[in-house]
């Protein structure tokens, strides 16, 4: 029971990171129909920025908001300057460009902050570990039914829950949200009724990158450091989550993220010989493949009719 509870919470807290990245993927996909392969790397860049803010002595609570601001700017500029012009050429070009962005951002992180994991006292970091948003000392846990649950895990889950509620309010009860849904439903018609689709798309990319930044900071906090490969597998898990939830359903992305985190943690925990740490990503792969084969629109996505 304790073990089960522990794995449950661990799965949910890892899953919340996947949910955040998946949310970003879904927001962009709904708006433009593009799959942003650089989503994880955009988040990683912002995470490095937050580390830098930490080095300058800014407390993590403020640093993460500033980091999300940087993420928003990065996403918005990417959309306006790169993705929008190239999407007029072909979807193939957009795919290549997002791969290019993926590589460029990862290289940029290395070029600015070096290849080693940070914080690293060897290269003069003032911080000992990546700042966590929640108390994360070894003594910071609560005991529920005999299981020691880290406060950090609970905090992360609560954070994602609150963020989800906020996002739903924005999507369903604000003008921006209405505009975003209109653009997602039919970009051409949205333009005709006077919605500035360009701004909406820019805001979507910015929002996606900002949420991603939060995900990156949370994950680096759990991981206690940030490194160049941090978001690599996270992106795979997040895309599995988005696939599971349905690529055009933000709610699906959150549920998908939690589910993927749960499934892979349970599988790794209860089948250490078969799955273990090595094949965790294999489980996500199988989930993704299974969903695409048997229910391509995901659990909550709308299946669209294709016109030939």
């Amino acid at each position, binding site marked *: 029971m304790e073990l089960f509870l522990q794995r449950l919470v661990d799965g949910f807290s890892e899953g919340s990171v996947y949910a955040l990245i998946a949310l970003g993927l879904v927001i962009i996909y709904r708006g433009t129909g*593009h799959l942003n392969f650089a989503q994880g790397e955009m988040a990683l860049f912002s995470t490095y920025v937050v580390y830098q803010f930490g080095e300058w002595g800014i407390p993590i609570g403020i640093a993460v908001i500033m980091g999300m601001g940087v993420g928003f700017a990065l996403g918005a500029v990417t959309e306006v300057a790169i993705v929008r012009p*190239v999407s007029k050429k072909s979807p193939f070009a957009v795919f290549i460009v997002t791969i*290019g962005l*993926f590589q460029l951002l990862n290289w940029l992180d290395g070029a600015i902050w070096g*290849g080693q994991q940070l914080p690293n006292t060897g290269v003069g970091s003032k911080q000992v570990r990546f700042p966590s948003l929640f108390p994360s000392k070894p003594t910071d846990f609560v005991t529920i039914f005999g299981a020691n649950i880290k406060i950090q895990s609970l905090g992360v889950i609560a954070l994602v829950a609150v963020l989800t509620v906020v996002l739903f309010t924005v999507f369903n009860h604000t003008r921006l949200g209405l505009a975003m849904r209109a653009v997602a439903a039919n970009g051409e018609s949205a333009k005709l009724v006077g919605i500035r689709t360009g701004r909406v798309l820019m805001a979507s990319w910015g929002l996606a990158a900002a949420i991603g930044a939060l995900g990156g900071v949370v994950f680096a906090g759990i991981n206690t450091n940030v490194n160049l490969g941090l978001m690599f597998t996270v992106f*795979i898990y997040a895309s*599995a989550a988005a696939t599971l939830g349905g690529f055009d359903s933000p709610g699906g992305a959150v549920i998908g993220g939690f589910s993927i985190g749960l499934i892979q943690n349970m599988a790794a925990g209860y089948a250490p010989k078969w799955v273990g740490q090595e094949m965790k990503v294999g489980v996500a*792969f199988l989930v993704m493949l299974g969903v695409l*084969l048997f229910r*391509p629109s995901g659990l909550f996505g709308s299946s669209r009719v294709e016109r030939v």
Partner: protein
Amino acid sequence: MTPLFSIKSGGPASWTIRVACALVLAYVLLWIPTSGSNSLIDTATTALTLMGAALALNLLHGFTGQISLGHSAFFGIGTYTTAVFVTRWGWSPLTTLPVAFAVAFVVGAAVSLPALRIKGVYLALVTLALAVVFPQFIKWPKIAWLTGGARGLTDTGFKFDKDNRTFELFGWNPWGNLRGENVKPFYYWIAVMIVVIVYLICRGLVKSRVGRSLIAIRDNSTAAAVMGVNLPVTKGLVFGLSAAMCALPGCLTAMKGTVTPDTALLTAIGSITFLIVMVVGGAGTLWGPIIGAIVFQFITEKTGDWADPKEIPSALRPIFSWSDVAPAGGIFALALIVLMFTAPHGLAGLWKRVTVRFVSVVPKPAGSSTVDERNVNDKP
């Protein structure tokens, strides 16, 4: 704008140019292992490895319009097929090439089964996941008895005789005594052989009826289906064939002696590298990946130690000295983005665009359709 010259395809002028190009190519190919330095031979061998993989990817991506980020896995299947057959069952490395081809073909065709239902970017996602899963699968404790797990395998290559290091090819020994550095040209020639095989398969397909049906699938799959192209079978076979060809240069990696699952080309980084090589050279052109691989390897090696500002030529120092890592990754990432705006068919496309102003070939050779605004027509 009318070009200055017009050359009849198959006429004497066309043949003169072809023979001249073939002679230059043959001269360069022979010059590298005989007169080039050892590091040049190594560079050339690596470039040829990338060439083979990018050519294979190009058949799928450039000509059929199917996106794959999973080719590092197929490359790795080649590597591990050779490694396992040589170490576990004592096969000669060269005889494992057809086996690797077959294994990768089966795996590729099997992966393409979902690919028939999954389109566009979803296929990219699934194949990317495949690329990430592959090294983990190799490390999986359940199959470590076969693959050596995370530690990898050693002695996976040719067993040159310890004393005189001769190597016999079906009782014939064209290489003389292979010792020390003398082994390098040997690997080089295997790489050349693999690239020639892959190139000829690609060329044969692209210039044939099959190639035209592939290009039709790429440009408009609905129209292709209406014209009688069997979409599922064609897509599946091409996916399998592309995977199989990609495995061949992978085998070469194992032939050099040791394999580990963390070799860069066997991870998702490999997939991205192949993609960069293909796009920079020119997707959808036969020569693109060849040019791309040479450019990629040349720049990567030239800038390899530029993380240290002292190594950068002084003219370029202000541009690159701030970077903590070698700039090749950033250069090619930027190139990928810029090329999509300026030259979607890469360097080969640029070359065509320039030459077409001066020389035109009539009639156009098969397989050279230049649809500039290419579409991945299957919207996700």
